[in-house]
């Protein structure tokens, strides 16, 4: 059993490193695809020559999502389509373009390749826990935010020494190499950063006591805590604000207004809440207030 586990982990890590993709099959298997359906607009009208018209005409769209974040964007080795809040948002947007969920080609994006994928046209949209930042907005467009979350901490159940980010000084804190979360705990709170390729590897290291805490967006941590409630807990209030946006290529600035309108529409007609309840809401948290959109003037 022990051997098998090691081999499985080895295979996962090898795949993750070598293919520069984080396609771990770790995480819960009860992440079933939601049964939600969203409105698909019949014959929507778009200004001719616009990107929306072109996508509607083509009858297909390529959307980049994460494959390794339970509840947000997650795909098991055996399923055809990813599940999570981000893919649900993708279906909502596609519906507004007059496209069925089956017209969507899901592409895995990892944190490092989201901008290049948009610039090269590998994907049309990126909906991959993609925090809006000024730096990113210089190279790609980001509409939204459609969801606001915050960085939290996952610790061992019996650990009382960490109650919030201020207790992190000198502690070993694990997150995915290259993430904003790991930079924040190091720079602001003096933690010793420990980077791994996937969150599930971090959770393993937390369980065997090699690190003191795991940090990333609260939604993801709640998913892991729910899987091992006897061993792990999420502590403290969120201590950052991550505003998830939908990325698009700067070549098609007209997408911004369309995406913002579609997000706004999903807020008001209840599709957004439906998407949340079927994914992140399963960890027991209620749908938060809908965030205020940035607008498209920038």
């Amino acid at each position: 059993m022990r051997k098998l586990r090691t081999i499985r982990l080895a295979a996962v890590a090898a795949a993750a490193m070598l293919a520069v993709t984080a396609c771990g099959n770790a995480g819960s298997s009860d992440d079933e695809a939601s049964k939600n359906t969203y409105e698909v607009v019949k014959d929507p009208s778009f200004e001719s020559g616009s990107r929306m018209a072109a996508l509607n005409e083509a009858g297909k769209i390529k959307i980049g999502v994460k494959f390794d974040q339970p509840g947000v964007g997650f795909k098991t080795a055996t399923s055809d389509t990813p599940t999570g809040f981000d893919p649900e948002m993708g279906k909502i947007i596609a519906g507004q373009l007059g496209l069925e969920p089956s017209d969507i080609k899901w592409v895995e994006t990892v944190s490092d390749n989201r901008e290049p994928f948009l610039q090269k046209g590998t994907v049309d949209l990126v909906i991959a826990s993609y925090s809006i930042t000024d730096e990113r907005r210089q190279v790609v467009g980001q509409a939204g935010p459609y969801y606001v979350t915050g960085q939290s901490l996952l610790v061992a159940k019996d650990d009382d020494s960490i109650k919030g980010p201020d207790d992190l000084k000198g502690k070993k804190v694990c997150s995915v190499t290259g993430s904003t979360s790991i930079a924040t705990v190091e720079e602001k709170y003096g933690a010793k950063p420990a980077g791994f390729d996937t969150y599930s590897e971090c959770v393993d290291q937390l369980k065997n006591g090699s690190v003191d805490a795991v940090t990333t967006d609260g939604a993801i941590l709640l998913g892991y805590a729910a899987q091992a409630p006897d061993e792990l807990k999420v502590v403290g209030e969120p201590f950052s604000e991550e505003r998830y946006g939908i990325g698009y290529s700067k070549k098609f600035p007209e997408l911004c207004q369309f995406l913002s309108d579609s997000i706004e529409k999903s807020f008001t007609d209840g599709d957004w809440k439906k998407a949340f309840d079927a994914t992140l809401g399963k960890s027991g948290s209620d749908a938060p207030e809908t965030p205020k959109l940035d607008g498209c003037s920038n």
Partner: protein
Amino acid sequence: MDALTDNASAILDGFWLTIQLLVVNGIGALVLGTLVASLRLSPVPVMRAVAGLYITVFRNTPLLVLIVITYFGLPEVGIQLGFFTRISIAMSVYTSTFIAEALRSGVNAVPLGQAEAARSIGMPFTMTLTQVVLPQAVRATVPPMASVLIALTKNTSLAAGFGLAEATFRLKGLVNDYATERWVIFFGIALGYIVIVEVISFGAARLERRWRVA
């Protein structure tokens, strides 16, 4: 350039850790590798077999797999070590096989006639070894040793995904934070690795020149 200058201390810390990994594992691999090579060259068949098995197993296993075993296997059998120690075990063992083979090739490169000639003029065994065989053997191993150490330098970048904040870890963090300056970041970090590798190459070239037969 802001991406590099603003984060200079983090990047330098990263390279400092890279160098620590290089030095610790370089020494570890040299010690282990010399031991294995001497077993492999020994006249006792059992020792030769043991060394052969060691090299077969660890040289033919991907380094990443060895690292994963020390990270996820050792804790399961109750061995708790720091990340630096764990990855160093894997890297030293892996690199030592290449060192051992480089040493063996060096010893084998000394023609048998040299030892026979030494003996025929009355040199005792230890003198033959220290004055005739080893100096020539070591000289022949300098270029392959340098290659092994250069490969080790680059292999240390695997630590970025295993809890150590070395240079490649810094690279990945910066690439995400500075979307507009990616090429500067890649170039800067690559330059750091090139400098380390060049130091090794330079040292090897100096040694070769110094030990050259006039």
